[in-house]
């Protein structure tokens, strides 16, 4: 059954069963493999994407439930260059194997959009749904703070 889907600003028509998880449509149908399969039951966060700016576990989101709402994946997070979160992640040398990091970056971006200056407790609360087996959690905390600083500095510089 053809379904319409808007991903990273692009319209797609996909022919899949309506109960197909968004994750597999992104990965296998649209070739957007930046979004990862980790658990399939919304436990690990590797599949995190944004739907209308809010984090969603794409592995447990039927594609039919998305409707015409805008989906953003790691590939579409920034139209030009790296986001503050990505820059902070590089500065703080966060990643190791990196498999969970698309999801971590998406979760952090959504957190900062909602809360530009999160505390450690805010970070733990927002990021606890994203597992990292390499155990880079300490650097994730630091990098979220750093991304908040970068964003604040940018908005000051831009007078916004």
């Amino acid at each position: 059954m053809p379904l319409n889907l808007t991903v990273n600003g692009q319209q797609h028509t996909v022919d899949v069963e309506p109960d197909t998880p968004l994750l597999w449509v992104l990965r296998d149908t649209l070739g957007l493999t930046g979004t990862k399969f980790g658990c399939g039951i919304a436990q690990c966060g590797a599949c995190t994407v944004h739907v209308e700016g809010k984090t969603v576990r794409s592995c447990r989101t039927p594609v039919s439930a998305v409707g015409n709402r805008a989906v953003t994946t790691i590939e579409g997070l920034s139209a030009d260059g790296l986001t503050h979160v990505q820059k902070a992640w590089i500065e703080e040398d966060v990643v190791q194997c990196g498999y969970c990091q698309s999801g971590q970056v998406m979760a952090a971006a959504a957190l900062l959009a909602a809360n530009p200056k999160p505390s450690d407790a805010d970070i733990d609360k927002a990021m606890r749904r994203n597992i990292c087996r390499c155990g880079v959690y300490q650097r994730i905390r630091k990098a979220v703070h750093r991304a908040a600083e970068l964003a604040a500095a940018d908005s000051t510089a831009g007078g916004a």
Partner: protein
Amino acid sequence: MAMKRREFLRDTAVAAGAFTLGFVIPGKVRAGAGEGAVSSAPFTPNAFIRITPDNQVTIILAKSEMGQSVYTSLPLIVAEELDADWQAIRVEQSKVDPAYNWPAFQMMITGGSTSVRTSWEALRQAGATARAMLLAAAAAAWGAPAARLVTADATITDPETGRSATFGEMAAAAAQQAVPADVTLKSPDRFRLVGKDQKRLDSELKVTGRATFGLDVAAPGLHYAVVARSPVFGGVLQSFDASRAEAMPGVVKVKQVPTGVAVIADSTWRAIKARDALDLTWDEQGNGGVDTDQMLQHYRELAGQPGFAVQEQGDFEAVAAQADQVIDATYEVPFLAHACMEPLNCTVHDRGASGGEGAEVRVGTQMQTADRAMAAGILGYEPEAVDLHTQFLGGGFGRRAAAWSDYVAEAAHVAKGEPWPVKTTWTREDDTRGGQYRPMTLHRSRLALDAGGRPLAWHNRVVGQSIDGFKMLGMEPENFDNAMIEGLKTQPYTVPLVNLEAHMTTSAVTTLWWRSVGHTHTAFMKETLFDEAAHAAGVDPMDYRLGLLEAHPRFVALLKKVREMSGWGRELPAGTGLGVAIEESFGSIVAEVAQVRVKGQKISVEKVWCAADVGFAVNPLGLREQMESGIIFGLSAALYGEITLKKGRVEQGNFNNYRVVRIDDAPAIEVEIIDSGAAMGGAGEPGTPPIFPAVGNAIFAASGKRLRSLPFRLS
């Protein structure tokens, strides 16, 4: 400029003679260009370096990047001696080639925390040799003595004339130079890159989703498979009915493979759905009764009986009879799954099946040579006819150094004879229940103490399975395998008599190395036991250890370091305690102090201090990160990790019941490095072993409860 093209590196044997580790600089990789193409030919002095006329320096990575940062630390070593421009380095994953073998097993392996230490000499030689040839080329071109020329950031300069050229400009001429039989390596005080914090080179790829892991492999005509496997270990398929599955949308083929039934579809999800519709009958081969509680009961019985004498230094019973006190304690650890973030997967294209040649395998693996040979054997090709491409690994931890290449072999069976490439994916449940676990293990330890509380004699009896991976490597253990007693023969504490016994058991459950292997349980046993001894002696556990390490200054230095870092001995709130542990593993020594708060039955690890001595840290930042990583990995197992079986079935399946540490229970971690100058040790694993006993000892300090089983539970 008519120059005769010459071989760049003719005689690897001569070059190899110069290396202290017996690691050969391979020389069989050549520029593709023939006669007359000299000016545009890349300079490829050895299998690790390629310099093109545009001054791009590419370093070939012969190890698998699985989070441990070899993608950065190994090129760093080459770049140091080459004087390349670190900011402009490009890294390329190697093919499978004997040139990249780990000498110990004559195959490509990334494991045993060996990458940096076994590559160090060879990569330095590779870089220095290339640099010497570039210098010789410049010297010849400029009529200047090579000794006068200097190099930095991929540029050669003559300080007297001010003349300079990039490596790229000299690449073609360098390719014509004789390969020096001997090169001088930099003295460490001249290192510009090595020994200093270096950020990862693969960060941007990984924060933008552009890194290609095995599961992300794309190919024209790619098909997707999942396999229905036996619900019990060692089960055999008796019959199956695929008619419902075959009728489902997107299903292309259902076929039997040795491990079960593969469903091949046009998407992963459709394959998963169709697999659910298979009707399968299994012959459980008598393994439907495997039960870990019963196994543990059996282990406890064996612990009361003499085992195989691995090491016998005297009559323990006689000493114990005279001792002031004897601690008698049993420590138990469960099976553990690796639970890499990226579930197992492998993509195979049997090109020969559709008129092409050989096959292509794309996979995240720690063991390229063995995996390729396995796939080739199954597909019916010579190994050289199979192109194996190593992808980024979404975690390895030993699981991707698979005994008998299990997931690669299965994927080869799935794709065999098919005209299209097939990606075989394991779901999380498949991965968790797929076996190749850290073996369930029990130690019964007795430590006889004198009136002053010092050890007189130690008797340890271990019960557990051997690791299947050792058998695959040709090390057929008869009465015990080394992982069962790993580190115990060389344990550092002053004990006049140490006897080691082993009961090697068997079961249908498959076993494998799991980050830090035997040290995961030997360190837990040893460091908990000596903590118990300290308390029995009425001595502070830190002081007690220091008092038994007279002959081991590196251990002493590390313990003093974590004592200082953690403020050991300071006053703590009620219900909070510090625990210490130290372990030598994979050539490195790591001490850790954990601060734990116990409230009711809840255990919170608030902070960990870690001091590591790996001899010399090539990339201190990468090393600190590996310590953090090893600690969190161990902590997941210490607090939650447990694979159990009932009726032959693994009870855990996903992160909801195979729990791991999340950010809100991850402690802050401080790491300090001691560069002792000792022989270089490993980094990936040594951070893991001490965290188990450090946390357990801290729980005791916080609550007075001595926990001897993992995972730690206060109920």
